[in-house]
């Protein structure tokens, strides 16, 4: 029997506000444990929360970017569960009235555009971190409350995803949008972007859903895809063997490449949510929503279309360039100085990206500013340097941070386009290779390539390749 997977993602995004959601403690990552805490985020008796309006602002922004309806009335509800990283034993979240609902985003997978529904976007506070120390009698645990109260958005998709590849594409697109919005660092490795998946399988064509499994602990796009592939196969195998899928929460084990059961889901009395009396509801009027809408940056889909419409870039190029806001910004700034967009795009997708990866840098951190890349391309276009030399120069620019012209001049890389000077070198190469010259004259046209190579070698690559070809043919 053929099966299909039904996948929905719950994504938690840490917002990059300066202070926490209900107090003024810093949200910065990596501080000494329990140094960014106060009576409020420690949940001490008698303390009261005050909502950070920047969090609401980011919530509206994200909801709008994900095509959601923005709630006009927003409240928080305590969600109760006993766990020592939650000092109040409840988390302020939004239960029945999320800030955003009924949205969608678009993904492209295998050349097909899919619209994935967003059920809701809601604001909540993050929990602290438990650190388990092994020892006799099972060891002990320490709690770091620095992260307690860091603002989160939870973005819940509809169960519209049908494959691990789609899930990954959704997650990548979501991260791109969040980057464009500048509301989060979106670093999966630091936990500022986290993802849980709900996945079930059913016979293709069936209209009912199978038993849902919640998968946690996927810390990269790759592990999301791998975990889902594994989990789908596991569920299909169970069904094929006539067994049932038991509802559970499982954790992805990256090193072993398997999912393991964390807890079996049973009857639950729920989280006992009710409207939090200590937090006054927030009214979001249409003027506020409109202001945020006006201030929204150009989003990836619109930008991609602009690159296609204004610069005639192929869809593929536009997709790659706009997948990173920084890369797209870099593109725009380079094209403003060097208008051959396709050449710029080729360079950015090719050597530029390769060098970024090699140096482990984001586009915004490139040691080569857009005007220097434009200068390099200009030198190539003018014929001052060859394409091959240009690649070499870019490499040096990344390594040293020097400008294009400076590298070219310092290393004497200016292309030799002087016919007289080159003509002499060509004559010398021909004289030194009589056998090859004879082959050529006997109809072995491939021999020309060897001779070109010899001229290039003799000029350390600086010879104008077109001119070399022309001169060789003349002299042969």
């Amino acid at each position, binding site marked *: 029997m053929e099966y299909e997977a039904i996948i929905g993602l719950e994504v938690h995004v840490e917002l990059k506000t300066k202070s926490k959601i209900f107090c003024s403690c810093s949200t910065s990552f990596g501080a000494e444990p329990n140094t960014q805490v106060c*009576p409020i985020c*420690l*949940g*001490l*008796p*008698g*303390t*009261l*929360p*005050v*909502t950070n309006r920047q969090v609401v602002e980011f919530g509206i922004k994200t909801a709008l970017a994900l095509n959601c309806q923005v709630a006009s009335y927003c409240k928080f509800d*305590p969600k*109760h569960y*006993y766990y*020592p990283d939650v*000092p*109040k*034993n*409840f988390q302020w979240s939004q239960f029945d009235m999320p800030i955003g609902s009924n949205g969608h985003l678009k993904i492209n997978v295998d050349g097909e555009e899919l619209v994935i529904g967003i059920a809701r976007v809601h604001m909540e506070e993050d929990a602290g971190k438990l650190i388990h120390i092994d020892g006799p009698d099972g060891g002990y*645990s320490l*709690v770091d*409350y620095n992260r307690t109260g860091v603002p989160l958005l939870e973005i819940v998709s509809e169960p519209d995803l049908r494959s691990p590849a789609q899930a990954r594409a959704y997650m990548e697109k979501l991260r791109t949008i969040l980057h464009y919005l500048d509301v989060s660092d979106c670093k999966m490795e630091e936990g500022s972007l986290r993802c849980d998946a709900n996945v079930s399988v059913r016979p293709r064509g069936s209209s009912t859903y199978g038993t849902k499994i919640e998968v946690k602990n996927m810390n990269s796009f790759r592990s999301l895809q791998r975990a889902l592939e594994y989990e789908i196969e596991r569920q299909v195998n169970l069904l094929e063997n006539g067994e049932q899928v038991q509802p559970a929460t499982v954790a992805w084990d990256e090193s072993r490449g398997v999912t393991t059961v964390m807890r079996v889901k049973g009857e*639950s*009395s*729920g989280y*006992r*949510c*009710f409207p939090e*009396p*200590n*937090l*006054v509801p927030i009214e979001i009027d249409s003027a506020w929503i409109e202001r945020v809408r006006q201030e929204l940056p150009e989003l990836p889909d619109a930008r991609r279309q602009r690159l296609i419409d204004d610069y005639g870039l192929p869809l593929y190029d536009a997709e790659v360039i706009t997948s990173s806001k920084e890369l797209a910004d870099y593109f725009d700034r380079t094209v403003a100085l060097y208008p051959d967009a396709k050449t710029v795009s080729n360079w950015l997708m090719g050597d530029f990206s390769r060098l970024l990866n090699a140096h482990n840098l984001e586009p915004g951190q490139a040691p080569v500013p857009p005007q220097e890349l434009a200068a390099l391309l200009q030198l190539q276009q003018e014929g001052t340097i060859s394409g091959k030399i240009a690649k070499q120069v870019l490499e040096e620019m990344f390594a040293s941070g020097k400008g294009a012209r400076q590298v070219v001049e310092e290393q004497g890389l200016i292309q030799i386009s002087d016919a007289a000077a080159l003509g002499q070198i060509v004559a010398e190469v021909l004289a030194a290779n009589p056998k090859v010259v004879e082959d050529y004259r006997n109809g072995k046209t491939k021999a020309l390539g060897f001779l070109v190579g010899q001229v290039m070698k003799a000029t350390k690559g600086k010879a104008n390749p077109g001119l070399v070809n022309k001169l060789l043919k003349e002299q042969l």
Partner: protein
Amino acid sequence: MNLCELTAHELGELLKSRQVSAVEATEAAINRIEAVDSRVQAFVTRTVEEAFAQARAVDAARSRGETLGPLAGIPMALKDNICTVRIRTTCSSRMLADWVPPYEATVVSRLKEAGAILLGKLNMDEFAMGATTETSAFFPTRNPWDLERVPGGSSGGSAAAVAAGEAFYTLGSDTGGSIRQPAAFCGVVGLKPTYGRVSRHGLIAFAPSMDQIGPLTRDVTDCALILNAVAGHDSSDCTTADLPVPDYRAALNTDIKGLKIGVPREYFADGLDPEVAAIVRRAIDKLAELGAICEETSLPHTEYALPTYYLVAYAEASSNLARYDGVSFGLRVPGRDIEEMNINTRTEGFGPEVKRRLMLGTYALEAGNYEAFYLKAAKVRTLIRQDFEAAFNKYDLLVTPTEPMVAFRLGEKGNKKPLAMAAADSYTSAVSLAGLPALSLPCGFSQGLPVGLQLIGPSFAEARLLQVAYAFEQNTEYHRRRPALEVA
């Protein structure tokens, strides 16, 4: 002259004219506490050294010629659910018996700034859950008018200390009647301000949608003075109203001619002690005599107020008290694992009344119960609010007995008889659900025990309540009576 017999504003005049120093006033209060508190048992913690240090600072400021406010140098005390930095704040619970807050409540900062002298922290029902102060994990407080009787609760220590002359004024907190009821039982003035009038920052929660801090005083003028000092917007409590605070004392006058007062008949029904009823009726006649127009009216949803109050308050409490788990503050009773530690801590840390309320509140919020209980209560709450809104379209204020009875004997109600104790909340909880201001003041005595008159106003009409109370007080003598503790 026995300083401890004076009201706060009378003492304030003596301090201002330098006939008495703050140190002398503090000494008098501490001597009084020494003399009577072994019998009254109002104080959980005494802060004698800090009190003298503050008093010396006030005296020094006065001798430098600084202009001081009316509360400077006047000794007072706080209910022990109001956080005081470096002074333990226990909620009269084993859970917090040794807990010292690292921060202080906004009301404490405001009173300190006004030059108040803190004598100590006052006993209460555990986590403000009770109406007798018998649920305190430490000891019950006694009613100064009859040591065999309860002072009421949950602010029993706050009311008893004022009645016994141990503090010139105190702060209490009121969730369903916890200021007004003990004020009535102890024959003092107690005001529950409008929800949002006084900051709750630093008040350990029982039910945050109703909790309010308010003063307990010997007369209405004192009540106005204290409210002046503590009321107003606080950026640390987003539920406080950003409204101007009038000068409550300046608003006191005795002219209540033409004021329309409604008398809701539901508060004079079965269960009201006949003698209390007669005393309250006479008080209403007095208001009429002073020129007010008193008419019978109705608050039709009154009978639903008590169950509604319980559902809302207990549900909120079950949420707010979840944090007492032994992990990072308060009592910790170890266990084999974290869950057992949570259970052991809560089992030993909470008394039976708190546990009962937490269980009921948890139940009311559980999936499958929420709609039938919590949500239904929230809807009835709206109806109760609307009852009052309709009444205030016709009347400037409402008047009722604060309590249907006088103070009862220790052990008579309370712990083992939760429903009997419930009656004590029935006259005060509707007001709490509606978030309205209400004041209790002495209006007579039944068998030697004080009877309280409850004045209820529209939101933020504290000035009007105080004015009517003042008019009544200026034409009666009940507030001048003091319990005969000396002979005991």
